[in-house]
């Protein structure tokens, strides 16, 4: 035991940060300029337009539009749908990614494909599926009517459609990472006496925490912004089954532009907050992997 072992970490050579292969100045400026122009026209201008339209008649009209009972109901419903859909998809996403990333079982590739289904089909179809199932002419619609359960054209339908559309986000973020990490650490944990719950809580989840947060942020953004699927099942009842995106559409169709853009600016703000959170999460996870 007295053996002196001199172990030194291998020195890593500093990586060159600038490339020595560079194009001529005018080529660089042309490319950068084209990219910037594209960004301004397609991303920045629309964002500016939303806020200028919303504030066209002053801050007073802006806040009056947001204070409208129907607008407030739409905001509340949007939050309710996201507050139910996101946690459920979080649990589902972790469970699915864990099963797919850490174990092999028959039907695994089928499960992976199924998880992608909501991305593959048009949101309108997603909504129609629920109408076909739970609508009055649908498979279990009559039974639901007899038992006085309302799903379609009511809040449960909106929540269901939102869950379906945002289904893949968390699982999609986690699966590749969990597959790359393998199950060595889990095996080590179990060999040290940890049970399944301890392994998940102390080993698996901390290793994917940034990807998980990233998935939740994207899932939430989509849950609050979803239009197509929710539109089909909502029935557009003002103050009852309108989410924020649906409310924007109704206001716009009534030529109530200030109110429409005021509500739209809330969604745009949500997008900006999402992007900021996403950038923060990405920089933190990069720091930790370095």
């Amino acid at each position, binding site marked *: 035991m007295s*053996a002196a*072992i001199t172990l030194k*970490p291998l020195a890593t050579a500093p990586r060159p940060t600038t490339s020595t292969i560079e194009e001529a100045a005018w080529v660089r400026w042309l490319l950068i300029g084209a990219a910037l122009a594209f960004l301004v026209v397609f991303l920045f201008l629309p964002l500016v337009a939303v806020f200028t339209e919303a504030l066209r008649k002053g801050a007073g009209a802006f806040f009056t539009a947001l204070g409208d009972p129907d607008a407030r109901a739409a905001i509340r419903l949007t939050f309710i749908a996201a507050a139910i859909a996101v946690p459920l998809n979080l649990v589902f996403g972790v469970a699915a990614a864990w099963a797919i990333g850490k174990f092999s079982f028959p039907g695994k590739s089928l499960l992976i494909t199924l998880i992608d289904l909501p991305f593959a089909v048009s949101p309108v179809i997603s909504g129609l599926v629920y109408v076909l199932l739970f609508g009055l002419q649908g498979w279990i619609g009559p039974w639901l009517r007899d038992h006085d359960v309302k799903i379609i054209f009511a809040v449960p339908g909106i929540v269901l459609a939102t869950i379906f559309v945002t289904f893949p986000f968390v699982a999609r973020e986690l699966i590749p990472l969990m597959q790359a990490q393998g199950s060595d650490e889990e095996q080590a944990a179990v060999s040290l*006496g940890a049970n399944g719950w301890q392994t998940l809580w*102390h080993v698996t989840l901390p290793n994917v925490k940034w990807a998980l947060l990233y998935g939740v942020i994207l899932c939430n953004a989509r849950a609050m912004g979803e239009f197509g699927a929710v539109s089909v099942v909502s029935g557009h009842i003002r103050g009852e089954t309108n989410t924020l995106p649906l409310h924007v559409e109704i206001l716009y169709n009534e030529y109530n532009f200030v109110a429409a853009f005021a509500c739209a600016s809330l969604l745009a703000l949500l997008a900006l907050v999402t992007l900021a959170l996403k950038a923060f999460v990405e920089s933190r996870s990069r720091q930790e992997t370095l």
Partner: protein
Amino acid sequence: MSIEVQNITRQFGAYTALDGVDLKIETGELVSLLGPSGSGKTTLLRIIAGLERTDTGRVLLHGEDATDIPIRERRVGFVFQHYALFRHMSVFKNIAFGLNVRPRRERPSKASIRNRVHELLRLVQLDGLGDRYPAQLSGGQRQRVALARALAIEPRVLLLDEPFGALDARVRRDLRGWLKRLHEELHITSVFVTHDQEEALEVASRVVVMNHARIEQIGTPAEILSRPATPFVRDFLGQDRGGESVESLRPPGRADFALGLLTGAAPRS
């Protein structure tokens, strides 16, 4: 504690990893499972640990049938080839993990866990590195953390899967001698898997040579060298005696690199 496996067979689809293997390891031995890749040695080690199930036969630990005992209750220390350290935990937390996950009434007090971890850090010569994270350690240091972590649960046997396989040649030689001395000090029944003849012959008190899912020969290093039981054993040990054959497949280590520069040859990449 003794380890005995009886008539172990394991198939992966059409592939036979182990074919009716019997082996008895006495208390306090340091045994090496030696063989080329695909010979079934790692599968055998994982079956002894409980990480893999066996299709037939039994695993006895200390004379008791442990075949159906799950790994978390077997109290075996397992050291993984690629360390498998918990990357988001400090070295201290890694080593303390096995004690911290015990049910509350069996869990040692915080103070005694701390003492135990520091004792183990001293044992693996990493005192003062408890606050580091695995990514901040060299390969050899990580391997010793993995060993300390496995020893923390006071395992009844220590199982090591290619413990030095991922390290460069010089570190590997250092750790080899160190593992042997550690075993002399702790006297815990230990089994390690290797494909490196030199490593097996130098470290182990007995060597189990495996090939094609079967055991070819069991004996002390001297017996195996002087009286190889089968042509395979003779051939396998005959390959220029040691790790060199394996090392030549690896990218040049620092020593090779320096030599390359001295002779003016362009370093291989």
